[in-house]
């Protein structure tokens, strides 16, 4: 039998595992029409980001806001970096230790370094999808708006392509080192928490600095983020290529070269370290005995109704799964961004109650993405329990709506309260903002649940992988669509009725519009649940 080199084994594994993932992603969509619609929705999202960036950059350029234009890219890449830290810790852990194919792969005559390298490449490829969906249209829109030279495009594409590899290498090393000192089961939850807390604290600290900037649009600039972060280099490179940063295209090429150098300086040692530690870490991850409990029946409670039993089960699962908290943390981060970025935003878009309502509506749509569209899918392979139990479809639906709505409405209400306080609104105005957030939470959740009951995914490896790819796009765009409709109603009532009255009438009109959407989508969700076969 022919023995392959480690490099050859790595290549073979990468190609084969990638093929398997592509096949799995395709087969998840039994309905080709829906798949095509999802792909088109992805294209729409790409176009929206591109056009938004292009128009925004042109507007800032026309206003002579060169300071903002030079500093915004580094902040945009910082947003991506912090978001990816939240996601990538769990992904690194999932790819290496929690991956269901790992026992099979370890039993194959494949060298550990080849296996770890292949898993590493696959992890980076997965991150490249986020780059393709969110970062690439931003970069293209920015460069096109500022008339950047042609060399800027390939150079920036190289830069944003290697960027996730640096990040992922660092996170994988932290993950593997953590597993050397703490048991895998604790590491899993612990790393998710670290992944949430570190970026949140960093984020708030960064925005605190933003809140202290002064001046008008033409003279304003964001404070520079830490210069040691690769995201900052990428930002400086982009603004240099756009002709608004320091050094022009030559500097842009210099930053791209710096990123390439760092990739080749970090990734090989990281892979070496991870490969050396992997076998022991894998064995250790199975260690740990059964915990004895003093009162085994302590968890047996009084009789609950079936809906309360379902809600309790789902809420317990939510509280014990930190991966499910990140959507909410992300939504609250956005509120912090709005509050502290108020100084930057107000000179561009004058603040009104209606604008604050739309802002909190966006927070609600954002906060509803994961809870809504994973509501049923979180049953995972245990879905047989619900289907074989004497539960009615409407009982399951009520629980499946209540739990995610409770989460998102809480975030929207807290966010709305914070925004209102920060913007100095009076009580009726605050009521309009909080109320609109809760209404949009209800609408977005029902849209997400309807989608999830129509296209559930019970075969995921970790909860965050449910909402990847096109699945994430459709419910988000649906929510965004309803926000646009309600935003139009708010705009109309603002034009016809001034002040707080206009905001309250807009709120009432939004309530009517969203109620129609909720009624229709939940009816569809109930029929989907009745017809569900597992």
């Amino acid at each position, binding site marked *: 039998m022919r023995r392959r080199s480690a490099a050859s084994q790595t290549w073979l594994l990468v190609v084969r595992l990638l093929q398997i993932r592509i096949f799995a992603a395709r087969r998840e969509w039994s309905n080709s029409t829906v798949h095509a619609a999802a792909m088109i929705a992805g294209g729409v999202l790409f176009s929206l980001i591109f056009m938004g960036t292009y128009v925004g950059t042109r507007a800032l350029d026309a206003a002579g806001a060169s300071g903002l234009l030079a500093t915004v890219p580094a902040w945009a890449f910082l947003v991506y970096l912090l978001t990816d830290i939240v996601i990538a810790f769990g992904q690194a852990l999932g790819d290496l230790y929690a991956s269901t194919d790992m026992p099979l792969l370890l039993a194959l005559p494949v060298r550990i370094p080849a296996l770890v390298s292949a898993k590493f490449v696959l992890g980076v490829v997965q991150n490249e999808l986020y780059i393709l969906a969110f970062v690439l249209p931003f970069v293209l829109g920015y460069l096109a708006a500022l008339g950047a030279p042609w060399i800027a495009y390939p150079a920036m594409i190289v830069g944003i392509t290697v960027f996730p590899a640096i990040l992922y290498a660092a996170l994988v090393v932290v993950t593997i080192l953590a597993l050397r000192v703490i048991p895998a089961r604790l590491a899993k939850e612990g790393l998710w928490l670290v992944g949430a807390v570190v970026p949140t604290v960093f984020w708030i600290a960064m925005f605190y600095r933003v809140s202290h900037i002064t001046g008008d649009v033409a003279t304003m600039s964001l404070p520079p983020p830490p210069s040691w972060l690769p995201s900052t280099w990428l930002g400086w490179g982009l603004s240099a290529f756009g002709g608004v940063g320091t050094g022009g295209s030559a500097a842009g090429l210099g930053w791209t070269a710096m990123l390439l150098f760092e990739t080749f300086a970090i990734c090989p040692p990281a892979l070496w370290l991870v490969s050396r530690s992997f076998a022991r870490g894998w064995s250790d991850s199975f260690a740990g005995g059964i915990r004895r409990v003093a009162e085994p029946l302590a968890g047996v409670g009084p*009789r609950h109704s079936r809906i309360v039993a379902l809600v309790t*089960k789902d809420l317990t699962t939510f509280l014990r799964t930190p991966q499910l908290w990140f959507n909410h943390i992300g939504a609250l981060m956005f509120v912090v961004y709005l509050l502290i970025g108020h100084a930057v935003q107000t000179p561009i878009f004058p603040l009104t109650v209606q604008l604050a309502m739309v802002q909190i509506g966006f927070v609600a749509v954002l906060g509803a993405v994961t809870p809504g569209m994973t509501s049923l899918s979180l049953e995972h392979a*245990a879905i047989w*329990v619900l289907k074989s139990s004497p539960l009615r479809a409407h009982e399951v639906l009520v629980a499946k709506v209540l739990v995610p709505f409770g989460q998102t409405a809480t975030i929207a209400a807290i966010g709305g309260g914070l925004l209102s306080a920060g913007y100095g609104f009076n009580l009726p105005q605050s009521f309009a903002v909080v109320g609109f957030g809760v209404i949009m939470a209800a609408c977005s959740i029902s849209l997400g649940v309807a989608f999830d009951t129509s296209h559930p995914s019970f075969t995921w490896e970790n909860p965050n992988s449910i909402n990847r790819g096109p699945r994430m796009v459709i419910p988000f765009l649906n929510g965004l669509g309803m926000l646009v409709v309600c935003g139009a109603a708010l705009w109309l009532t603002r034009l016809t009725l001034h002040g707080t009255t206009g905001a309250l009438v807009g709120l009432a009109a939004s309530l009517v519009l969203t109620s129609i959407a909720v009624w229709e989508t939940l009816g569809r969700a109930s029929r989907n649940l009745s017809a569900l076969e597992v």
Partner: protein
Amino acid sequence: MSGSLLEVESLTKRFGATVAVNEITFRVEPGEIFGFLGPNGAGKTTTIRILTGLLRPTAGRAVLGGFDIVKRPEAAKRMFGYVPDEPNLYGKLTPVEFLNFIGDVYGMDPKRKRARIGELLDLFELTSAAGELLEGFSHGMKQKVALCAALLHEPRIYFLDEPTVGLDPKSARLLKDILRAVTRAGGAVMMSTHIMEIAQGLCDRVAIVDHGRIAAIGTVDELRALRGDATLEDVFLNITGGEPGEAASGDRLRSIVAGSR
């Protein structure tokens, strides 16, 4: 109405052009353990999934304790306990929390629920693991928890899909004893299995399924008599065409294992 606990008439399930279950008809009486045998892909699990409400039949009907599973699903589902072939449970719950949830879904009295959960955990030696999350359990331990859930609300009918897979010998023996106790109390069990010894030793009647159809049905002795007092394994292989035959000729097997010298 007849006294059968389970009546299945012309049950059919199609997935596109594939007929997974093809006009299956049988009954299971109170006090009976009914074995459902067949090669992989014969339609055993699909049949059980239809009977438990996980799949809707394309045609035919199934009546459980007098309730049609399609027309009166809630009432029919109250009649049975089910253990699937893969005991996937809620990983973020403990066994006690999971069983408490099941008890609430079936509307059990709190005192009875508490007593039953304690008894069952003790019976399957799960008490010491009662505070652990299910995600850390082995296949066999999850199987035991799934059995506890099926037994919790004391149903009259049990559907068990490959129930002994993953169980240690002691637990497998315990399960057999429980099933015999169930039938002595007037309940009925329908179980699928690949293990002929279990079918021969435990089942009162057996159906052999092949390509979605029932190829033979009767008591073990009746089936053995069909082939001149052969073993149930011989009968099974003969009916399902599963004799190793040419495909496993000595030369071919020697060639396959040549590398293991």
